[in-house]
Every structure is written in structure tokens, then in C-alpha cells.
């Protein structure tokens, strides 16, 4: 009973002015592919506005010499991180920005040891820093970087439309489809209903923020 955004597609055809799902499929100004695209954009928007898509991730391995690590795909932010060295040995990492690293240790880029901090804006020296986190000090032992992260869900598309969230969120996606479809420049545009759908989404987002935590 998880949320299947495909249900939102069958929920909107009438409100988009079609006579049936088949009528929608035959339409020129809007396709099912467009609607899946709108659902995918809504899922990604939700990943930034509400802390709803939090997962436990242990996919990042560290080894002797590891400083910068590549974050998992779709990473939005990290809520909690620790290194698991195995056999019950762990080290919780303090999330620290690069300014604080410089204040702490002017030579932080070259220090090696047991990592105690994780920085998301330090990046690899010479890189832009996006999608990269940096351990301080650089690791001298191998282990696993375990994180609780907010992650954008996999691309919503035909055949891959199920999201691991409560089924009540289906209606958020329904209004996202209406918002986008009715705002398209066409003979079928209803911008006032599109704006109303935006307000409906805002209500849902406020609810999700209270229940599941804020986003960025």
C-alpha cells in the first residue's frame, strides 16, 4: 500500500478535461510521459522541501588514506554519520564546515588519523566540492561510512512509480500533475486551478514538514 504515483495519473484525467484514460493517451497537448515527468519533478521538489525521503546508507567504503569521499547518488543532506570499523567499533562524526576546519587546524588537508569530523563544503582540494564529503583527519583504517541521509527518490517513470512513503502522499502528486499540466500554455490551460493546486501542495508540504521534518 505504499504510494504509487501511477494512481495519480488515473486520478487526474477527468480534471484535465479528458473523457477517459484512453482519451488522455490519445491527446496531443499532454502525454502520460509528461505526467510522469511532472510526478518526478514533484518527488524531487519534495526531497528538498520536506525531510521525507530519509534513508540509512552504508554504501560508502573508506580505506587507509581516504579523505574526500563521493556521496551516494541523489544525496540532499546528511542528518547523521558515523564510521563503522567492524566488530562493534564505531566513531560518530561531527558535521563541520570548512571554515571551522581551518579554524581548528590550518593543516587539516594533510592530517591523517581516525576521522572525527565530516565536512560537506570542504570538497576535494581543487574540486568544486559538490557531491563530495571530506573526512577529517584522513582515514588510516578501513571501514564503512554509515549515514542517515535525505535522498531524492529514484526517477519516477512508467513501470517505476512506487515510492516508499505513506499512501496519503498520492494526492500530493495528483495536485503536482494538475499544477503543471494546467499551467502549460495551451487551449486547455486553467491557470487559476493550477495556482489552486499549488496551494493544495503547500498544505501537504506543511503537513509533511510537521510529521517528517523539514527539508533544506
Amino acid at each position, binding site marked *: 500500500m505504499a504510494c504509487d504515483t501511477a494512481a495519480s495519473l488515473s486520478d487526474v484525467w477527468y480534471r484535465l478535461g479528458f473523457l477517459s484514460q484512453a482519451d488522455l493517451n490519445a491527446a496531443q497537448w499532454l502525454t502520460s510521459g509528461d505526467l510522469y515527468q511532472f510526478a518526478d519533478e514533484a518527488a524531487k521538489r519534495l526531497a528538498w522541501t520536506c525531510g521525507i*525521503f530519509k534513508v*540509512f546508507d552504508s554504501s560508502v567504503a573508506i580505506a587507509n588514506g581516504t579523505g574526500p569521499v563521493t556521496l551516494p547518488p541523489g544525496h540532499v543532506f546528511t542528518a547523521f554519520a558515523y564510521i563503522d570499523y567492524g566488530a562493534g567499533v564505531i566513531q560518530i562524526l561531527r558535521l563541520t564546515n570548512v571554515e571551522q576546519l581551518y579554524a581548528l587546524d590550518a593543516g587539516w588537508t594533510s592530517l591523517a588519523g581516525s576521522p572525527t569530523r565530516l565536512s560537506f563544503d570542504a570538497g576535494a582540494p581543487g574540486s568544486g566540492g559538490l557531491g563530495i564529503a571530506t573526512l577529517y583527519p584522513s582515514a588510516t583504517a578501513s571501514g564503512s561510512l554509515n549515514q542517515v541521509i535525505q535522498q531524492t527518490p529514484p526517477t519516477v517513470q512508467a513501470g517505476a512509480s512506487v515510492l*516508499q512513503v505513506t499512501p496519503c502522499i498520492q494526492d500530493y502528486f495528483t495536485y503536482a500533475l494538475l499544477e503543471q499540466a494546467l499551467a502549460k500554455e495551451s487551449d486547455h*490551460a*486553467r491557470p*487559476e486551478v493550477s495556482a489552486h493546486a499549488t496551494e493544495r501542495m503547500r498544505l501537504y508540504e506543511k503537513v509533511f514538514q*510537521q510529521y517528517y*521534518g523539514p527539508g533544506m
Partner: protein
Amino acid sequence: MNLVQLYTTVSRNLNEQTPAFYPTAEIIAAINEGQRLFSLLTLVLETQQPWTITPGATFFNLLPVFADMIVPLRMSDVAGAKIRPARLEDLTSLDALWPAAQGPPFRYSRIGADLVALYPHPIVTTPLFVTYARAPHALVNDTDVPEIPVQYHPVLSDYAVNRVRQVEGADALAKTMPLLNGFLDAAQACGNYVRARNRGSQYDVQPFEMSAFDRSQLLKLRKDLVPARTPLAAVE
């Protein structure tokens, strides 16, 4: 009210003796949407289910176990003792090695839509009880009755009228906004009741604070956004 009574009421409120322009399937979908939103806003539907924890992990996903869960309200062990909620920061302050701590859990942290951390995490298979707010079952058959309290059944038909008018938009939709407002008022009243009850029951999550939500933009259509469709009179 059962489903047939509800959708008949909606049809008549839409001035249709028999569904024609507004199909019954669309009205039923609108009633179901109203019930889902009401349940989401108020957390009025709750259930308690056993949950058997397999040892060896600190973090668990609840939705694969409780597919209709909105949010967990309370956890307890088999003896009924409450497992207290905590933030991840609280657990770190409590124990710098908490992800590795083992034993019978007495704290849990709720993270996102369904992720839960247990502290300590059990080393043997451990049964717990989870009380959670759940989504309603969809109304399908004519004799199905909404699960929300009976005094709020009429606002489901109000909600449905507002929703099916979205197909027309403009003034037709604007005129039904008081019905949506009535629905939200009912959700606020029910949410206040559930909140008081949840506090008494020492639940860990309260319903959405409707009173803090600014509905003013939701309940009016923007006048500057006129429908782009050509009016029928102009076509003729």
C-alpha cells in the same frame, strides 16, 4: 453514511439527479481523496500492531511492515512499557557509541517517512508493539462506510463537490470554496480532539496544527489568472 449515500448526495448537490457530467467514479475518487486528507490532517485512524525485530541492525524501515502507516505514535515492549522517543542528537548525547550499543531497546528515533533507529538494538529477536496513525481503506463498494468518525461524513461530500468542480475552474470552483473551508474546519475540530486524546495517551506525534496554517490563499482563486479557454458564447 455509506458510499452510495455519499455519492448520491454529491450528485444532487451538483444538481444532477443521475450522474452525467460528473461521473460516479470521479465522485467516489473525490470522496476517497477527502477521507485520505482528513486522516492525514487529524491522525484520527490508529491501530496497534506487533513488530518483530530481527537482531543485527540499528536502523529499520517501517513501511514494508506497516504499509498503511502515516506516522508511528507510540512504541512499547511486550510488557507495555513505553519506548521513549529521542532525536538522533539526543541519542548521541546520551551515548557516543549508541549505534553499536546492544540490548533491549528503550529509546527510538523517528526519521523521515518510515526510518526508525532503536537504542540499544536487540541482539535477539524481539517483539514490540507499534501504535501508528494509518491511512484509511479505500471506499469501493456501495455499502462501504468511511472510517472517519460518523459526524464528519457529511464534510466528505462537501469536499467531493469542491474537488469535482476543479474540472470547470473559475467561478464554478470559486463558489465551492466555502465547502472546502468547512471541510478544513471539521478537520481542525477533529484534530484538536485527537491532539487532546494523544496527549493523554502520551503519544509521540500530534496532529497537524491546522490553526497555524494560513488558508487564505488556498480558499480563493487568483483573480489575475483568468481561464485561457475561449468562452462558449464567444465560439457561438
